[in-house]
């Protein structure tokens, strides 16, 4: 699956703020670390602020801090600020009756959506920080491919 750029940027920012609970970080600092657009990240941080996840202070010494509880805040909470996740996201729309093939395909896609939602909902920001510290990919024989996100140098 692929996350939208805004969702990925939001997760980078939230993880960065959660990893530095005693500091306020500027959008410029976060954007530089991930090589992403400052302008785009600023918009993402504003949306996270409106969602009650981060708080920003202007001026010298200003910056952002995480105000949500990282033990309770899940990946789903962050992603859903920017894009729908789950059955609603792929809805065919309208009240048109589905053909049998469409209905059968819908059942399979809903199955995948249910797994996606359950996975994002079960992983808190604190769990992500622990995962990042443990680096299980370093011990795995599986070849890890780069994450398939839309994030990148913008």
């Amino acid at each position, binding site marked *: 699956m692929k996350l939208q750029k805004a969702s990925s940027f939001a997760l980078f920012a939230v993880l960065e703020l959660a990893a530095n609970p005693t500091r306020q970080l500027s959008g410029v600092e976060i954007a530089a670390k991930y090589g992403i657009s400052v302008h785009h990240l600023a918009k993402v941080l504003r949306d996270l602020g409106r969602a009650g996840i981060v708080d920003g202070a202007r001026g010298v010494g200003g910056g952002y801090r995480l105000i949500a509880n990282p033990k309770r805040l899940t990946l789903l909470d962050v992603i859903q600020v920017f894009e729908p996740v789950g059955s609603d996201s792929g809805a065919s729309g309208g009240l048109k009756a589905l053909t049998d093939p469409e209905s059968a395909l819908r059942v399979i896609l809903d199955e995948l959506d249910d797994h996606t939602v359950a996975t994002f*909902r079960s992983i808190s920001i604190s*769990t992500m920080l*622990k995962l990042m510290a443990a680096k299980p990919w370093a011990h795995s024989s599986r070849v890890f491919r780069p994450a398939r996100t839309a994030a990148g140098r913008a």
Partner: protein
Amino acid sequence: MTAISTMKPLAEPRTSEAIRIRPATGSDLAELTRIDEEVSGVAKRKYWTHLLASGGGRSRYVLVAEEQNQIQGFIVGEIRAWEFGEPPCGWVFAIEVRPKTRLQGIGTDLFSALCDRFRRAGVTKVRTIMARDNHLVLSFFRSQGMMAGPFIELEMALDRNG
């Protein structure tokens, strides 16, 4: 299905002197049944009686977390060989903590104690299966470092008339 290798768990066990983890005995049956009923809302005395009585040989572990002589939670696990074609691995069948004493690390202590026993028995992987909508316990296992394993659970309804 969720699995973890025996790499260091993500969560550090709590270092509380007050909680003691020990194997369950027959006299714990009533408390285990009561905690399970409190958590699940379903009384299953026969199930727990059978589970404690049958023992499962040396490969089954029923551990309780005790605080001041009161059981606050328990975990049930078993080492099974060649289930689904897999070499021996540890399975977690149940973990329950009294709602009033949650968020104090009791679940982490229980899980850690069970993993220690699995390790000592020579297995290198622990697995469990969870209901997708059980966000609380699913999040707990994730916080311990468990990730999706290589299996997909499938099911179908059986028509009574065949």
